[in-house]
């Protein structure tokens, strides 16, 4: 079976992102970029399925500017077999990304598509579900375990009240949650090998997609600051403050 994994280039999760002084956008000059952590989990899951003999080929796709080829190479170093870069300027919205991914799905005909549940920049949590709608496939979102059995897949999902297991017909879409696996680090030899793996560059026009704008970001601003707090000496003082100053306990 063939697995398609989507990866996104995002600001590294350790970076504390700030709004530009003029509020036009966030400051992204000279910040460290990385593969979105949930996408890394997606790659790892595909690699484990390949190691288990369930998956034969892993195709990794990224959509964005040329620089996102770095993240494709990272995924190749982690064990993906070949890459597809859909070159797009700017920040396409989730719906547009899903349309481009549908183009890739139509061409590649994967049995399984794995994406991260959300990217840690826009925090939208949309693309996998949208791709599932556009391809009319089943979706197993926020997955913490997947089990493939013939042309069916059981997905255990992290839901608000606990866990839910559903059965999906393949081909299907999975979006990863944090507990699905713990991604490995790429070894140096694998990083070297990844440089020689095939990477195709395509454009939205190749899929007949014209990128549209549905939502415009008008401005960005820092969140309201919390007033500075105090350190209390001991538990007795803490309880006193909570009772008599903050009045949140009685």
């Amino acid at each position, binding site marked *: 079976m063939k697995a398609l994994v989507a990866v996104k280039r995002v600001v590294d999760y350790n970076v504390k992102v700030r709004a530009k002084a003029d509020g036009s956008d966030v400051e992204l000059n000279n910040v460290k970029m990385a593969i979105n952590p949930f996408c890394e989990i997606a790659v790892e899951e595909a690699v484990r399925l390949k190691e288990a003999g369930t998956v034969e080929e892993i195709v990794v796709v990224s959509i964005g500017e040329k620089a996102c080829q770095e993240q494709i190479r990272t995924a190749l170093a982690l064990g993906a077999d070949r890459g597809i870069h859909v070159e797009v300027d700017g920040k396409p919205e989730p719906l547009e990304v899903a349309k481009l991914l549908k183009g890739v799905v139509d061409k590649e005909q994967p049995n399984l598509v794995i994406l991260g549940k959300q990217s*840690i920049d826009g925090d939208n949590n949309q693309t996998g579900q949208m791709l599932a709608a556009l391809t009319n496939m089943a979706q197993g979102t926020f997955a913490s375990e997947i089990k493939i059995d013939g042309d069916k897949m059981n997905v255990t999902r992290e839901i608000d009240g*606990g866990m839910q297991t559903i059965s999906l017909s393949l081909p299907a879409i999975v979006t990863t949650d944090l507990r699905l696996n713990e991604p490995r680090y790429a070894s140096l030899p694998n990083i070297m090998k990844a440089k020689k793996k095939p990477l195709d560059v395509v454009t939205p026009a190749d899929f007949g997609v014209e990128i549209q704008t*549905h939502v415009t970001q008008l401005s960005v601003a820092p*969140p309201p600051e919390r007033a500075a707090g105090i350190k209390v000496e001991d538990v007795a003082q803490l309880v006193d403050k*909570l009772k008599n100053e903050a009045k949140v306990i009685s």
Partner: protein
Amino acid sequence: MNTLVIAEHDNAELKPATLNALAAAEKLGGSIELLVVGGGCGAVAETAAAIPSVSKVHCADKPSYEHQLAENVSLLIAELAASFDNVVAPATTFGKNVMPRVAALLDVAQISDIISVESADTFTRPIYAGNVIATVQSSDAKKVITVRTTAFDAVADTGGSAEVVAVDADHDAGLSSFVSEEVAESDRPELTAASVVISGGRGMQNGENFALLEGIADKLGAAIGASRAAVDAGFVPNDYQVGQTGKIVAPDLYIAVGISGAIQHLAGMKDSKVIVAINKDEDAPIFQVADYGLVADLFQALPELEASL
């Protein structure tokens, strides 16, 4: 202008997140109708009819909707959406699962996790783990929106008498089926609705030590939460996770114990009214958002705290 709000429920009870989503819908203006979709959910629809801000309750009660599978429910919502300007749901795991699928079926964007309605087409929402608030404007004729429940005060849920209409449309996409569910039963309030939350982090060392939090939670009527590190380490179940990629909470009192205060954790709790941090490292970033910080070993402080409540 009219808005369809998707009710959050478990076929037995209407969940409070619905009331927060309705509050956001009120800000959009115009009339509001509610969809209760499920299996054996008639009583939920009857309860919902008492919400004064709802003019009509649509009840889609079919076996194919019992487990609210996204493949089936999204087809129904997309069909009903034809006669509404806005479709709104709370940003719960249910809303997050179903609504983007609806949006794509309608060929419109979804605006995720809004924290304010500036006008009928302009909203604010946190991005980058809440380090930045973006103001966004939608140009879609039909808007699909999920709502951060902590940002909107619940509407009243009694006093109204909306008409309940049965929805006939029965969509079964035939792509997915329900296997099983493990839902924790607890006498404690729900994490996202509790007025007091006490959370433990990696500093708790193991699951057994969460008993130290339970005693305090019992006395304060609090829900128990956790950091990702505590969940990953298996101390507590995944649904305890508070943060950017877990649950968003904003109780009157949030007590963080043995939690360092990574931005991903802060994203889920920094809108709490009063924040208390107990940590033995005086430089832990959690103290930067804490109203009251106690530098102490939690294994000493927690028993003392329980005793003094």
